[in-house]
């Protein structure tokens, strides 16, 4: 990773797992039209990727939707990044994003993700039902379910890190992996 706080020489492709090749990537500001373009691309090209049959388009699509919409709602930064990659043997697909966040946001994200990663699948389902039944929602309709759902879809195969970015921000890097044989 070449990123540092002085010149932001980020190579976003360092976020892509080492044995993977990129299917689609985008760096810039995320808007509704960007989302539409990326999701259309994923759908059109998925069938050409010869992924393991257990890695279904629906799973890749759902993860992509949540991650892209997280960026639309929570990041107005032109350095936001999204990618979909696949392992060379086709048994793993990764979907990832990075975007600058404040230290306070990083604390909240870190606490939430640590908790979710240590939660079993059945507990995640219970949490999801609880949020669905009783949870509050944000102005755009979400209810804090995005990270919960991503953890559940990936069976906990969710990786994150915060890298130096600027004096008052960190780069939040999040990667969701979908495996042909989930743990």
């Amino acid at each position, binding site marked *: 990773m070449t990123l540092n706080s002085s010149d932001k020489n980020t190579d976003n492709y360092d976020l892509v797992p080492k044995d993977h090749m990129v299917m689609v990537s985008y760096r810039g500001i995320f808007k*509704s039209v960007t*989302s*539409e373009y990326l*999701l*259309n691309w994923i759908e059109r090209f998925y069938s050409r990727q010869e992924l393991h049959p257990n890695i279904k388009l*629906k*799973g890749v*699509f*759902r993860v992509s*939707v*949540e991650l892209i*919409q997280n960026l*639309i*709602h929570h990041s107005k930064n032109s350095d936001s990044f999204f990618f979909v990659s696949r392992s060379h043997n086709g048994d793993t697909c990764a979907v990832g994003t990075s975007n600058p966040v404040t230290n306070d946001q990083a604390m909240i994200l870190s606490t939430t993700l640590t908790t979710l990663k240590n939660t079993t699948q059945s507990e995640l*389902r219970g949490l*999801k*039902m609880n949020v*669905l*039944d009783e*949870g509050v*929602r944000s*102005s*755009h*309709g*979400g*209810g804090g*379910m*995005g990270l*919960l*759902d991503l953890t559940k*879809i990936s069976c906990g195969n969710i990786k994150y890190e915060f890298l130096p970015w600027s004096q008052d921000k960190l780069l939040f890097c999040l990667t969701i992996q979908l495996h042909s044989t989930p743990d």
Partner: protein
Amino acid sequence: MDNIIISGTSKTPDVAFLTSARTMKLSGRSIPENSIDFYAPLIEWADGLCNTEGSVEVNIHLEYFNTSSSKCLMDLLKRIEASTENASINWYYEEDDEDMLEAGEDYDAIIDLPFKLIATEIR
């Protein structure tokens, strides 16, 4: 009450809310960035219909939905549940789609109305 018929887009579902048939159908995909904008009028319409005499049938046949739509679907079903005991829900899922089956089971566990989970052939 007028019918609500909306053609689906790449992000929003087909909607057929029919007054005389007393049926509501959502099909396709539901992944709008702001689901409240899309669902608020549908929830109001459902409330109006359910407060008139007669049974109501809800058919949900979605391919994908995002998490904000899942909250709005819950709001729709809760509003129907609160307005009438004379409603039933049919939840369609493709037979290999475990996520959509599980989602239906979760709504069924929360909503106290007759709820059918119906497997369909893979398209």
